[in-house]
């Protein structure tokens, strides 16, 4: 009897400890969203899809003016041409993505067969390779055209990243993304969370730090600083460089898992890409 009691107590203790250390993705998301609700009580949750402009009224005025003549429009048109143009074998992207072009809401997702997170740019390149075409470069160039077109066509879809429970590797990838998010790196010793969670809304020189909630809804974005449209992983690269850490490969394991974790936190928010940012 004593033994059974001891075992039950130790199992319960282990459960409590493991719960404290490793929260479920659902619990993480609840904490994430609650954090921003408490920090910016006047901002409705759906507004966070507008990124920093949900909390920066002055920046928002400029952004709304920019959106009257969106700088990303030509990229959408170029992307549509890419989507419709047949490959050398006569097939098109539509053959790879029958539900396309409005497919942004399906990414990132866990691919059980590949044992990896699959991002939209990776899926596009896989389509090109399967059709004997040269894959596109991930950070700069034409990939951003087709991403802009797909994002535009996917507007209104809702972020709905799933962490399948039947494959522990998916949870592992999520946890790796989470670890990346909270790990301080680079010479300046900053984590993603330091800027976009802990200090969201604070000023960094002349800029207001954007909230992490809604970070993934509006990519790709036309950044005035870039003078072109760029992808989420290009932005990750920029953030890492800013804290003086060596950036990782676009769509490599680190950033894929980071995207998986980060996008999951915005589940329920509408996609509204491509966006325009400073």
């Amino acid at each position: 009897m004593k033994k059974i009691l001891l075992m039950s107590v130790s199992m319960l203790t282990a459960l409590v400890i493991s719960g404290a250390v490793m929260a479920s993705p659902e619990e993480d998301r609840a904490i994430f969203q609650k954090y921003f609700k408490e920090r910016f009580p006047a901002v409705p949750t759906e507004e966070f899809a507008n990124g920093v402009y949900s909390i920066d009224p002055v920046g928002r005025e400029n952004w709304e003016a920019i959106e009257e003549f969106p700088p990303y429009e030509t990229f959408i048109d170029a992307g549509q041409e890419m989507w419709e143009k047949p490959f050398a074998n006569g097939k098109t992207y539509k053959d790879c993505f029958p539900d396309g072009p409005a497919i942004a809401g399906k990414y990132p997702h866990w691919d059980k067969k590949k044992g990896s997170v699959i991002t939209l740019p990776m899926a596009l390149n896989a389509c090109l390779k399967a059709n004997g075409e040269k894959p596109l470069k991930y950070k700069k160039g034409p990939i951003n055209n087709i991403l802009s077109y797909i994002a535009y066509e996917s507007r209104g879809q809702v972020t709905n990243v799933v962490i399948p429970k039947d494959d522990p590797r998916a949870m592992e990838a999520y946890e790796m993304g989470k670890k990346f998010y909270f790990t301080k790196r680079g010479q300046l010793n900053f984590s993603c969370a330091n800027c976009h969670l802990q200090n969201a809304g604070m000023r960094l020189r002349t800029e207001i730090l954007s909230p992490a909630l809604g970070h993934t809804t509006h990519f790709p974005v036309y950044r005035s600083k870039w003078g072109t449209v760029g992808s989420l992983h290009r932005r990750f690269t920029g953030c890492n460089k800013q804290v003086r850490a060596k950036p990782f490969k676009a769509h490599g394991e680190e950033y894929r898992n980071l995207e998986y974790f980060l996008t999951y936190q915005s589940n329920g928010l509408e996609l509204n890409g491509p966006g325009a940012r400073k």
Partner: protein
Amino acid sequence: MQKTKYLGILVLATILIGGIGCATAGSEKSAAMKTEMTADGAKQAIAAAKAAQKKAASVSGEWRDTGKIIKAAEKALKEGDVKTAIKLANKARVQGERGYEQMMAQKDLRLPAYFK
């Protein structure tokens, strides 16, 4: 009595921290001083920097400029500026060491208080 006890602990902690700080600074200084101001010394310093960079990269802890600093050290050595080459190589080595330590200190995920 209680006050004296706390004061004692405070003084002891200060001495200990100070001691560790001096020891660390001392070991860094001595490592830099051990390097001979010759082309071979510079080569050794660059090799040490590259090893530290690799070690940091092995735990995803490489810093942005380490590679660039090593390249600059190599360039300085090529131009015969041994002093600059050693100075830069040592700087890169310290970056590599710090990057590795940074990641090791965060081996396990510890969530910040604001995310609980």
